[in-house]
C-alpha cells in the first residue's frame, strides 16, 4: 500500500505543493491525478469528475486542459525546440501556420528561449530543456499545470528562473499549479498551500510558514533537513558491527 487515508484538495487558482522525502509516493500521486495510474480504492477527482471512471476519450479531453512539466523535460528528441512547443498545437488544432508561429514564439519568449527556437534538444542544457518543456506545457493555455520535481539538478540561476516562471504563470494566467518537489526553500517562496507526505499519508498541511513552525517531528526533520528523526536515513539492515565482523571472520 502506497497511500493510506490521503485527503488532499488543490484549490483553483492557487499553487499547491506536495513535499516529502524521496520514495514517499509524490510522483505516484501525480500519476493518479493525471490518470496514468489508478488507485485500487479511494477517489481522485479533477474538475469534479472521477478520473478512474473516465473513458480514454474523456481522459484525453481532461489532459487537454492540463499541462505537465516532467522531471527531465521529456522533449521529443527528433524535433527542434520550435516544433516541440508547436507539437500540441499541431496535434489538436488546425490553426494556420502564421498563428502557430505567433503562439510558439510568444511562449518561447515567456521562458526566455525565443532565440533557441531552432536548436535540437540535445543542444540544450538541463535548465533550458526544462524551460522549453514549460513553454510546451503552457502552449495550449491549460487550466492546471503540474510540475514534477521542477528544480532537480538545476543551477541556482535556472532554479530561480523556473521558480519565478511558476509564480508568474499562476499570477498572470490564473493557472492552478501543483508542484511536487522536496526543495523546501524554493517551494516556500511560491506555494500558497503545502502538503507534507510521509509514509503514505499527509503528516502536515498549511502554508509553508505554518509548516516551518510546526512541532510535528516528521515536519521538523524534513523542513530542517535533519538525518535523525522519524524518517529513517538508513534502509533497514542487520547490525553494522556484527555484519562487518562476520565478513572479517568469513575472509579468514
Amino acid at each position: 500500500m502506497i497511500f493510506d487515508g490521503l485527503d488532499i484538495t488543490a484549490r483553483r487558482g492557487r499553487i499547491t505543493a506536495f513535499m516529502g522525502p524521496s520514495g514517499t509516493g509524490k510522483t505516484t500521486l501525480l500519476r493518479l491525478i493525471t490518470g496514468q495510474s489508478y488507485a485500487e480504492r479511494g477517489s481522485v477527482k479533477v474538475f469534479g469528475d472521477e478520473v478512474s471512471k473516465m473513458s480514454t476519450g474523456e481522459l484525453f479531453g481532461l489532459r487537454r486542459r492540463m499541462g505537465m512539466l516532467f522531471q527531465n523535460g521529456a522533449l521529443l528528441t527528433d524535433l527542434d525546440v520550435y516544433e516541440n512547443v508547436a507539437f500540441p498545437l499541431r496535434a489538436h488544432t488546425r490553426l494556420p501556420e502564421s498563428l502557430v508561429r505567433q503562439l510558439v514564439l510568444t511562449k518561447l519568449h515567456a521562458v526566455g528561449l525565443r532565440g533557441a527556437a531552432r536548436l535540437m534538444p540535445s543542444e540544450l542544457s538541463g535548465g533550458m530543456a526544462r524551460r522549453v518543456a514549460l513553454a510546451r506545457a503552457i502552449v495550449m493555455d491549460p487550466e492546471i499545470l503540474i510540475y514534477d520535481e521542477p528544480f532537480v539538478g538545476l543551477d541556482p540561476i535556472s532554479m530561480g528562473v523556473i521558480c519565478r516562471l511558476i509564480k508568474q504563470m499562476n499570477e498572470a494566467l490564473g493557472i492552478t499549479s501543483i508542484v511536487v518537489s522536496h526543495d523546501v526553500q524554493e517551494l516556500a517562496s511560491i506555494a500558497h498551500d503545502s502538503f507534507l507526505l510521509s509514509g503514505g499519508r499527509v503528516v502536515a498541511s498549511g502554508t509553508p510558514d505554518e509548516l516551518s513552525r510546526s512541532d510535528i517531528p516528521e515536519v521538523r526533520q524534513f523542513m530542517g533537513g535533519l538525518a535523525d528523526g522519524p524518517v529513517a536515513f538508513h534502509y533497514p539492515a542487520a547490525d553494522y558491527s556484527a555484519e562487518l565482523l562476520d565478513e572479517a571472520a568469513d575472509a579468514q
Partner: protein
Amino acid sequence: MNAATDSLPVVALRRIGSMTLFLGQVLARVVPSFTRPALIVRQVYNAGARSLVIIMLSGMFVGMVLGLLGFDVFQRFGSEDYVGVLAALGNLKVLGPVLTALLFAGRAGTSLTSEIGLMKSTEQLTAMQMMAVDPVRYVVVPRFLGGFIAMPLLTATFTMVALYGAQLIGVQQMGVDAGAYWSQTQNAVDLRDVWEGVVKSLVFGAAVSLVAVYEGYNAEATPEGVGLATTRTVVISSVLVLLLNYLLTAAFLTTK
C-alpha cells in the same frame, strides 16, 4: 504468471498473444494516421533510403556469388546459359525477399526498436499521452508503415542489383553469351515468380516492422532493457522471416 519461471512455450505463447493484440491496435490506427502523411514519408525515408547502401552492396555480392557458383555447376553439363535462370529465380523467389528482410531487421529493425525504447525510457511517450496524443498513432504506426512500404522497394532494389551482379560474372567475366543468357532467363521466369517475391516482401515487411515496433514499445525503460529489446528484435525477426519463408514457399508450390 511469472515470466522468470514460466516455460519457453508459455512465454512464447504469451508474447504471440500480446503481439497479436498490439497488431490490432496498430491496424486500427492505420487509416487515421494517413491524415499526417509527412510522418509516414519520413519513416519510409528512415527505414528505406538509409538502408539502400547496405542492401545494394549485399545484392551485388550475392548476385556475383550466384554467377560464380552457377557457372561452375552448369558448365559441367555444358549449359552455362542457365546461369541467368538460377540467378533470376533464386533472387526473385527466395534470396531477394529473405536476405533483404534479414538485413532490414539488422539495420532498420534495431534502429526502430532502440528509438522507440529510448523514447519510452526518457518519458517522451508518457509526455505525448499527457498532451492527449496517442503514441501508438503518432510514433508506432508511421514507423510500422514506413517499414512495410520500404521493404518491397528494398527487395526490388536488392533483386535488380543481384541480377546485375550475376550477369557481371556470368556474361562479362565468364563469357556466357549475353543473348542466350537473357533469353533463357526470360523464358524461365514467369510473372508468378515475381508475384511470389512481392508477396513475400510484403509479409516480411509487416512481420519485421511489427516485431521492431512491438519490442521498442514494450521495452523495459532502462538502458539494459532497450538493449535486450533490440537483441530480441533481431533474433525474433530473423527466425520469423525464415519460418514465414518456408510457409509461403510451400503455399506457392501447393497452389501451382
